[in-house]
């Protein structure tokens, strides 16, 4: 083990609502951080409904899981799966046959403390909901990424989660807007990023377009950041770069009003 290495950062990826892309975000941001030379571990905190393993394409390599580590059945090192495709990328899978009550927030906190000594980044894939699984997942985190889609239900749940994160002393969560459809935003049939920032009043970390390449890469078990042609992959890579402290402009997904509409607005404002 490396001596006097600075402590790593523990970030939980959460949303409240299910199906908005927490697991995909965890897999892709983690992979992008590893590609950028960081030592990363992805922790699947969705006990009983694990999926980070299949999204990463590592499902056939699981021997031990996070509950085994906590129960002392194996050592931490034995449960960590090394992703051979990327330097310094590891997965700590969730247990599939247990439930959220198999671990406690205190145990999770202890696990995060151990992992941060060895890794630069510990990314925790939080389960949907606001119950025990959520409480476990956020217990050891220093920071949070709130994932939402431009839907009324997802934004509502994101607002609730932001409140709960603040209640558990996790200040300044960052927003990731996933699955934005540029064509619908242009027609005024989908909320844009500004609308969501306006409502949720938190800092924006990134905007990811709705992209078929995510479905394809998930089918294959290969994170989209490895695909140079994937728009979503590029967006996730930009997010990783921002986490590393770089200033990366947001992908241009916002409404282009066009000349005529701007002219009309100008005229109607003068009245």
């Amino acid at each position, binding site marked *: 083990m490396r001596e006097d290495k600075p402590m790593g950062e523990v970030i939980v990826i959460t949303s409240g609502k299910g199906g908005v892309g927490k697991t995909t975000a965890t897999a892709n941001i983690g992979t992008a951080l590893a590609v950028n030379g960081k030592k990363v571990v992805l922790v699947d905190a969705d006990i009983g409904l694990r999926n980070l393993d299949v999204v990463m394409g590592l499902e056939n390599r699981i021997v031990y899981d996070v509950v085994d580590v906590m129960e002392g059945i194996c050592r931490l090192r034995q449960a960590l799966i090394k992703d051979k495709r990327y330097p310094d990328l590891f997965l700590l899978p969730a247990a599939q046959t247990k439930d959220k009550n198999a671990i406690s927030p205190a145990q999770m906190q202890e696990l995060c403390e151990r992992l941060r000594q060895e890794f630069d980044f510990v990314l925790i894939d939080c389960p949907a909901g606001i119950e025990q699984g959520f409480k476990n997942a956020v217990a050891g985190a220093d920071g949070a990424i709130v994932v939402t889609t*431009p*839907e009324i239900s997802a934004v509502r749940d994101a607002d609730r989660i932001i409140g709960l994160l603040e209640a558990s002393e996790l200040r300044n969560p960052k927003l990731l807007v996933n699955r934005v459809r540029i064509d619908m935003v242009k*027609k005024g049939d989908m909320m844009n990023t500004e609308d969501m920032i306006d409502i949720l009043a938190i800092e924006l970390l990134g905007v990811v377009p709705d992209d078929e390449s995510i479905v394809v890469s998930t089918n294959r078990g290969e994170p989209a950041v490895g695909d140079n042609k994937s728009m979503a992959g590029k967006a996730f890579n930009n997010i990783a770069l921002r986490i590393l402290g770089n200033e990366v402009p947001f992908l241009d997904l916002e409404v282009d009003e066009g000349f005529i509409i701007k002219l009309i607005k100008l005229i109607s404002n003068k009245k």
Partner: protein
Amino acid sequence: MDLFRSNMRKSASSKNIAKERLKLVLVHDRVNVSPTFLEMIKGDIIRVISDYMEIDEDSLEVKITKTKSDEGDTMVPALVANIPIKRMKGAAR
């Protein structure tokens, strides 16, 4: 005049409807008020006011919205009651 119509359509676009609905629902979510709680407030208001005036109970409306705070631009929750009066009672005159 098609241009103006398209501008009007914009304000009623479905994303703006979503945004408005979301803003309203979040006001309730954030202050943690249930519809039952509002009904209780409504009942108490009717009881107190009825001593002084006859009110239209069916059109009485009690809701929580957001309003600009007196100092600065921040938005704060406000309880808004719209109480149509039918007639003042004797004691009030």
